[in-house]
């Protein structure tokens, strides 16, 4: 028969775990709201950037255009930017990204390509260290702590572009979680170098009517590196919103599970207590009868 005191101790420890998880859920919910706001506020910029690039790219297609747009002409070496969280306890958030990354690495290696990794977020590099440690060229952390600064992201963008220009890779793809709702995040792979051209929404005839200052190629040369940073930035914002969403959901279910466990343990505790009392009564009665 289980010891009453042990049961009591277990109930108390589950209760305190429940308190922690429900507090974490609240914190994640508050952070989620803010992260979502940031992500939404950042949308106009990337939408307008896309529009400009689409307009320009439409014109440049016939002439070839800069390397950031047209690519190096081969795809031997791939760089994957893996975006994860710095912290765990957020359900399948990190592992789903890592799983997608592994799959991608295997697939690229099968095709005989070279693979390099840049990990943003500590959890990604931790989990990939064992099997793909030698592929990780850089791992960054601490960017998603607090508000994400565009200047910090622009710095990463500049570094990627430097690597690209030095010929370290031909194609750059980022892997991150797109925010759908607090419950669902979608693992997304998005190619950022060479730039994937968004579908031009403006009519064909308006495209030709633009005037350019200084000229098309100069603007494009300035716009494209910015576009890389902008895409990284919006992906990071989405990713952070997803992280908090995933953590909120995970903590919510942890709190619920703890509640169920407490109920079950309390039931056992009461049963055991009753059994003890019954046993004692039987002992007393049989003792009295024996006299």
């Amino acid at each position: 028969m289980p010891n009453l005191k042990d049961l009591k101790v277990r109930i108390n420890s589950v209760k305190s775990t429940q308190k922690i998880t429900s507090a974490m859920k609240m914190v994640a919910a508050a952070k989620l709201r803010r992260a979502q706001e940031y992500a939404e506020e950042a949308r106009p910029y990337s939408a307008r950037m896309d529009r400009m690039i689409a307009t320009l790219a439409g014109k440049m297609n016939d002439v070839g255009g800069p390397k950031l747009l047209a690519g190096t002409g081969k795809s031997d070496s791939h760089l994957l930017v893996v975006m994860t969280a710095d912290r765990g306890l957020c359900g399948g958030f990190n592992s789903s990204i890592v799983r997608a990354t592994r799959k991608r690495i295997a697939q690229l290696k099968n095709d005989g390509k070279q693979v390099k990794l840049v990990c943003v977020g500590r959890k990604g590099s931790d989990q990939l260290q064992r099997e793909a440690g030698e592929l990780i060229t850089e791992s960054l952390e601490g960017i998603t702590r607090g508000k994400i600064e565009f200047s910090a992201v622009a710095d990463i963008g500049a570094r990627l572009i430097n690597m690209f220009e030095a010929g370290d890779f031909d194609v750059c793809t980022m892997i991150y979680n797109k925010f759908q709702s607090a419950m669902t995040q979608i693992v997304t792979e998005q190619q950022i170098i060479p730039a994937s051209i968004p579908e031009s929404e403006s009519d064909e005839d308006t495209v030709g009517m633009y005037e350019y200052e200084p000229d098309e190629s100069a603007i494009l040369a300035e716009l494209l590196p910015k576009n890389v940073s902008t895409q990284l930035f919006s992906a990071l914002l989405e990713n952070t919103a997803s992280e908090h969403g995933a953590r909120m959901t995970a903590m919510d279910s942890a709190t619920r599970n703890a509640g169920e466990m407490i109920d079950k343990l309390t039931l056992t505790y009461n049963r055991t207590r009753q059994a003890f009392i019954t046993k004692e009564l039987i002992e007393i009665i049989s003792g009295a009868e024996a006299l």
Partner: protein
Amino acid sequence: MAETTLFELVSPERLIISKDVSMVVVPGSEGLFGVLPRHTSMLSALAPGVVDIYEEGVITEQLFVVNGFAEVTGDRCTVLAEDVIPIEDLNPDELEEKIEQMRVDAQNTSEETSIRLNALIAQKEVVLQAMRIVRLK
């Protein structure tokens, strides 16, 4: 029909201004240009400088922009800028201190980072110059 242009100022973090104005003056890389309704469509890179917003003939807002682009069509003018500072909050001295600090850093690091820092310093100096001119006005 009272003619206005929809002016939008967007930074990576958020949409800062979106309203109908009578004219905006934008610091293009080839010189200042004013945008009135029915302006011809154009795309321009921006030099660091001040965007003046005119409503009914008077300047209602002035903002300092860094690293930007402008897209102009007949009925709207969109400015994308990495840094947007309201003109009252402009602080060239602070930037100068930062540049000084970066110079010191550039001397004390590896060659590779110092090249990167120097490029950054050059950029910031252009911005600083533009800020000083604004202050002098």
